[in-house]
């Protein structure tokens, strides 16, 4: 009698726990799935990709979307991207040094976020996910406020109604519906039209979020109410470990057609194209032709978060391919080649980035720990006698310790 066959025999070698984190982990033979995912993720975005600045820094034109931009404005966009990347790298280091509990890197998505952020007018409202550090920068939010959330001293710290930029939303896709509702309100308030102060809303989410029911419902609501909302999807190719092919069978921008509004795929590593397309989309919305879906085709060059290990699921080749399409480098090449910026500009910007990084490091270390007020306050707009009693009871408990100072925290 032949021996019974083993059930789960596999042809390909399995990465074991011991392999994780080993220096040669990335050089191990990839699984077929990794190869396919990598090949797809490095695709060029297809013929519909809107691009105004090639990865080589060459200015090209597009029949539908173009933009007149002064050298000063272009230098401004470059500065934005350099500064937000520097803050991002600083934050990543601060996490490694134990100063932040977690960091969610922005690396590689600077053009998508600065292009979108600079397309917004002051009266517009933005609804971020949790990686929108570049957009937050454009809304005038101090990076230390974002880091406070990842240090655990605050939930964000900025005033969303003042900055017209909602709190970060961590539950994937929730904000797309909230943004749609806000846009409906703009319309009900009569703020959609040809006037200079007409308003629009922009919702930020990723390729992974497109699988969420809330994103679908947001699309439905927006289209049936003609809500002035731009759905800005940063397709960075990866939802933690899952490639975009795990979320969709058609390009994301194609989905808009099914809902009855325009969908545009823009080179998300091209700040000019992203700015041009988003400005157009925001204006369409504010004048009553919303909604619009934008798929910013980009790449998450770092891990999902500092707790993630991309070597387990994607190839380093893919990262190398995307480095050639870096969003900042192409603008630098363009500025230099066209003589739009001199060495002094780059040197001064470098010095400014250094200064800001030093300030950020110190500001993070100086963030005060939250006290018990931060736990109990603002749970209810109208206050709560029940919570007041709970807080008083806890305070009395803390006061009972010989070293009662540790209880106050403020």
């Amino acid at each position, binding site marked *: 009698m032949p021996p019974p066959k083993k059930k789960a025999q596999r042809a390909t070698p399995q990465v074991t726990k011991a392999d994780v984190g080993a220096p040669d982990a990335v050089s191990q033979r990839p699984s077929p799935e990794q190869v396919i995912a990598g090949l797809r993720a490095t695709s060029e975005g297809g013929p519909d990709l809107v691009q105004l600045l090639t990865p080589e820094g060459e200015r090209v034109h597009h029949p539908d979307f173009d933009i007149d931009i002064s050298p000063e404005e272009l230098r401004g966009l470059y500065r934005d991207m350099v500064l937000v990347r520097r803050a991002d790298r600083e934050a990543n280091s601060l996490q490694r040094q134990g100063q932040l509990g977690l960091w969610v890197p922005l690396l590689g998505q600077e053009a998508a976020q600065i292009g979108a952020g600079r397309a917004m007018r002051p009266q517009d409202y933005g609804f971020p996910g949790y990686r929108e550090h570049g957009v937050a920068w454009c809304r005038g939010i101090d990076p230390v406020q974002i880091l406070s959330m990842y240090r655990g001293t605050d*939930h964000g*710290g900025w005033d969303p109604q003042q900055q017209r930029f909602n709190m970060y939303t961590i539950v994937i896709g929730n904000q797309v519906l909230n943004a749609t*509702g806000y846009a409906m309100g703009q319309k*009900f308030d009569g703020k959609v039209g040809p006037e200079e102060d007409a308003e629009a809303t922009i919702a930020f989410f990723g390729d992974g979020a497109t699988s969420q029911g809330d994103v679908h419902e947001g699309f439905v609501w927006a289209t049936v109410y003609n809500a002035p909302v731009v759905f800005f999807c940063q397709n960075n190719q990866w939802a933690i470990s899952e490639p975009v092919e795990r979320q969709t069978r058609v390009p994301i921008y194609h989905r808009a057609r099914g809902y009855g509004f325009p969908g545009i795929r823009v080179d998300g590593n091209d700040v000019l194209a992203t700015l041009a397309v988003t400005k157009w989309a925001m204006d369409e919305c504010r004048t009553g032709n919303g909604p619009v879906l934008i798929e910013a085709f980009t790449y998450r060059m770092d891990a999902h978060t500092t707790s993630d290990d991309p070597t387990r699921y994607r190839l380093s080749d893919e990262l190398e391919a995307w480095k050639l399409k870096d969003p900042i480098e192409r603008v630098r090449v363009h500025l230099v080649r066209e003589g739009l910026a001199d060495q002094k500009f780059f040197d001064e910007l470098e010095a400014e980035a250094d200064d800001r990084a030093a300030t950020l490091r110190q500001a993070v270390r100086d963030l005060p720990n939250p006290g018990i007020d931060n736990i109990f*306050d603002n*749970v209810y707009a109208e206050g*709560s006698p029940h919570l007041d009693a709970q807080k008083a009871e806890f305070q009395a408990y803390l006061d009972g310790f010989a070293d009662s100072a540790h209880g106050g925290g403020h």
Partner: protein
Amino acid sequence: MAAPTMNRPDSDMPDFEPKVQTITLAKGINMGLRAAMEADKKVLVMGEDVGKLGGVFRITDGLQKDFGEERVLDTPLAESGIIGTAVGLAMRGFRPVCEIQFDGFIFPGFDQIVSQVAKLHNRSKGSIKLPIVIRVPYGGGIGAVEHHSESPEAYFAHTAGLKVVSCSNPVDAYWMIQQAIWSDDPVLFFEPKRRYYEKAQFDPAVSPDPLWSSRQLTSGKDVTVVGYGPTVRIALDGAAAAAEEGKELEVFDLRTLSPLDLGPVYESVRKTGRLVTISEAPSNCSISSEVAARVQRECFYSLQAPVLQVNGFDTPYPMSKAEEEYLPDLDKLLHAVDRSLGY
């Protein structure tokens, strides 16, 4: 007309002046919604079939005709969408009143309720206010199919940042819906659907109680009974039946489930030494359980008997032909009262 309730804004619209009349609970909510919409243009009603149809229970009957399609929104059929867009509208300064068609359909909206509605005020340090009312017809006793007879109030009472109330009679319905709308906090408003067509005399000159207060309905020295929503009627019937046997029940209508207003209940239990709670929800981790826990803590030395709970069973809501077995009723209440008195 009675004095305006909390936070009621100044209005440029004519005062809505209802007359002394007999109304149903359903009519009370309808009139309350109308009064709020008259008072403030920022009040919106939104939900499935709330416009032309007037809602499957006709609670919003006539509102779209009088206030238009931008204030009474027949929404697409998705509960997360209703709640999630209400969040954005509230951030914009509106006061949305969302209708969830039936208790069992609230769960697709649960994520938005607990993740955004409940937390945004706190996370934004008070910058964002979400004066959203989520109306939920709830409870059984109407012979309905699955998902149409549930009592999910405890899920929401468990969540910080939400307030939860339930009306039990037509007059409360009229006032409480308005008070909930003028609250700057999000309010889950549970409507006892099997009491929708019970009637009461309504006199607009009688001022309402504050929203966040329980109410004593009968006086008695023997057993305290606490109910809310659909079970208040049973508690009152219980008091009448017990009185025939010479037993006095002191009945309370909780009205507000989160926050709870148990001060008057503690006073009562310190007098009677006995408490029976009655609610349609399963008892496990329920409003009844919370009442029992707090009463044993506050009235420990006065209790003559353990707190007894008359609840639905800890099972899924049964098929409708078995709901009579499942639901609390007069006999179950009187049995619990007798057990309490037997200690």
